[in-house]
C-alpha cells in the first residue's frame, strides 16, 4: 500500500519519491533485521568488490525498484494500452485496403503481416517511453533537484536506471496487448532471431530516447517549460523516426536525410529487426546506434555540467 501511496504522490508532484523511499526502505530489511548501513553496495564496499560492481548494483537496484513500483499498476497500464488496439485496428484496415489496391504481396519489401507487426513493435516502443521531461522540469522548478544532487549517486544515471525500469514494464504490457492482436490476426509469426534483434535494438533505442529526452528536460535550467520541445521531438519520432510508416516507404531523398538523424535508431531499427532480421544489417544498425549513444552521452554530460553550475536552489 505504501508503494501505491508514494506512487500516487509521485504522479502528483512528478518527483521520484517511491524510488528514493524504496531505496531507503531497502536499506532496512525487515526479514534479516539489517540496519540502514547494510545496503548491497555498502556491503560490497566492505568486501572490497570493485567500485564499478558496487555502482552497477546501486543503479540496478534503482531500476529494480522502479520495476516493482510500476508492476503494482499493471492493470492501469493495461487499460491505458487498450488505445493501442484502436490504433492498430485502424492501421490494419488501412493497410488491408492499400495491399488490395496495389494488388501486390509486398510493399516496400514488407508483406502485409510484416508491416502490421512492424507497427505493433513501433507503437509499443513509443507508448512505453516514460515522460521524463515533465519529471525533471518539476524537480528543477520545485528545487527537489537540490536533494537529488546531495545523494551519493549520479543524477543522470539515477534517472537512466529509473527510466529503463519503467520503460521495461510498459514495453512488456504494450507488447502483450499489441502482440495479442497480432497473434489473433496472423497466428504465431516466424521471425527466427527477430525477437533477439528487437530486444537488443530496443535496449539501445530506449537509451537514445533517454539521452535526447534528458537533454530536452535539462533545458529547464534555462527555460521555464520544456514540454513544447519534447512534444516536437516526439512528433519527429512519429514521422522521420519511422513510427507511422517504415522508412522504406519514404521518397528516396527523405530516406537519405533520415539516415543521418538519430530518430531512426529509436523506432525504425528495433521494429525492422523484429520483422526482417538480418545478421549483417543488425551489426550495421548496432554500430550506428552506439555511435549516436556515445555522441549524445557526451553532449548530455556537457549540458548537465553547464546546467548544474547555473543551478540556484533557495530554501528547502
Amino acid at each position, binding site marked *: 500500500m505504501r508503494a501505491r501511496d508514494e506512487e500516487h504522490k509521485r504522479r502528483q508532484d512528478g518527483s521520484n519519491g517511491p524510488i528514493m523511499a524504496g531505496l531507503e526502505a531497502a536499506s532496512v530489511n525487515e526479514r534479516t533485521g539489517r540496519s540502514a548501513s547494510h545496503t548491497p553496495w555498502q556491503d560490497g564496499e566492505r568486501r572490497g568488490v570493485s567500485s564499478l560492481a558496487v555502482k552497477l548494483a546501486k543503479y540496478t537496484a534503482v531500476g529494480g525498484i522502479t520495476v516493482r513500483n510500476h508492476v503494482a499498476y499493471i492493470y492501469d497500464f493495461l487499460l491505458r494500452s487498450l*488505445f493501442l488496439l*484502436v490504433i492498430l485496428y*485502424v492501421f490494419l484496415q488501412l493497410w488491408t*485496403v492499400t495491399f488490395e*489496391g496495389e494488388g501486390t504481396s509486398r510493399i516496400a519489401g514488407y508483406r502485409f503481416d510484416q508491416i502490421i507487426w512492424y507497427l505493433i513493435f513501433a507503437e509499443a516502443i513509443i507508448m512505453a517511453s516514460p515522460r521524463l521531461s515533465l519529471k525533471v522540469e518539476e524537480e528543477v522548478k520545485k528545487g527537489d533537484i537540490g536533494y537529488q544532487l546531495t545523494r551519493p549517486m549520479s543524477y543522470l544515471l539515477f534517472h537512466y536506471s529509473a527510466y529503463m525500469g519503467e520503460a521495461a514494464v510498459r514495453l512488456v504490457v504494450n507488447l502483450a496487448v499489441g502482440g495479442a492482436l497480432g497473434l489473433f490476426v496472423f497466428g504465431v509469426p516466424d521471425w527466427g532471431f527477430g525477437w533477439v534483434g528487437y530486444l537488443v535494438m530496443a535496449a539501445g533505442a530506449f537509451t537514445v530516447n533517454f539521452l535526447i529526452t534528458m537533454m530536452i528536460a535539462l533545458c529547464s535550467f534555462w527555460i521555464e517549460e520544456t514540454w513544447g520541445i519534447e512534444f516536437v521531438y516526439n512528433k519527429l519520432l*512519429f514521422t522521420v523516426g519511422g513510427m507511422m510508416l517504415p522508412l522504406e*516507404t519514404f*521518397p528516396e531523398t*527523405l530516406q537519405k536525410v533520415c539516415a543521418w538523424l538519430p530518430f531512426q535508431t529509436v523506432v525504425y531499427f528495433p521494429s525492422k529487426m523484429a520483422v526482417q532480421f538480418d545478421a549483417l544489417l543488425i551489426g550495421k544498425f548496432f554500430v550506428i546506434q552506439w555511435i549516436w549513444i556515445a555522441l549524445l552521452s557526451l553532449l548530455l554530460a556537457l549540458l548537465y555540467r553547464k546546467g548544474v553550475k547555473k543551478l540556484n536552489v533557495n530554501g528547502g
Partner: protein
Amino acid sequence: MSTAAKHLSFVFACWKMNLAGAMEFRMSFWLQVVTMMVNNAVWIFFWGVYFNRFPLVNGWQMQDVMMMWAVSAAGFGFSAVLFGNAYSLANIVATGQLDTYLAQPKPVLLHVLVSRMSVSAIGDILFGLILFVLFGDLSWLGIVKFAVALCLATMIFTYFTVLTQSLAFYIGNAEGLGHQFFITFLTFATYPTDIFRGIGRMVLFTVIPAGFISYLPLGLLREMQTPFLLATVVAVTVLAVCATWSFSRGLKRYGSGNMMTVRM
C-alpha cells in the same frame, strides 16, 4: 429582451471573457496554438508520404483526406474553444465542482460548457482553416458547404463528449473512460470512412458516430449526398437529445461534493 436573447448575450459574454483570460499569457497562448498545429501537421506528413506512393485509397484522394482533416480539426477546435468544459465534465462532476453552477440562475449545462476555453484548440481551428484554403473549394458555395460541415462536426463532437462524460453521474469517476471514448472517437474521425467494412463501419455510424464527420468531405463537400446529409442531421438531433437527457437525469442524482470553489 427575450430569454433566448438573454442566454445568447450571456454565452457571448462568457466567450469574450474566456478569450481575454487566455490572451493574458500571450507567450503561453501562442506556444500552445503553434504546438497543436505542429501536432496536426504530423498527420499531413503521414498522408503526404502515403499518397505520394499510393495515389488512391478506396476512392479517396489526397484532397478528400486533407478536407477530412480540415473538418475534423476545425470541428473539434470550435467544440473545445466554445464549449471547452465538455471535455472536463466528468472531472467537474466527480470532484463536486458543479455546485458553483447550480447556485446560479442560468441553464446549468450551457453555463458549464461555455465556462472554459481550450487555448490549444485555437491551433486546431487555424490548422483546419489553412487546410481549407490550400485544398478546399474557395467558391461561395464551397465556403458555405465547409461552414455547414464545421457546424455539424462541432455539434457531433460536443454532444458525443457531453454524453460520454455524463457517465460520471452514474458510475462515479468516469474521467478515464470518457477520455478513452474521446480519443477513440477522434481517431476514427480522422481516417477515411471507406477503409472500414462490416462491423467496424457499422460502429462508425452508431456507437461511435465519428463516421458522420469523416464522411463529410465526400458526402457534402465533394457532392451533396442527400441521404447522408439527412442521416447526419438525424444523428446530430439524436445525440443532442441523448446528451441533454443524460445530463439532466444525471443532475438529479448528483450529490454535492461539499467543495468550496471560487470562479475567477
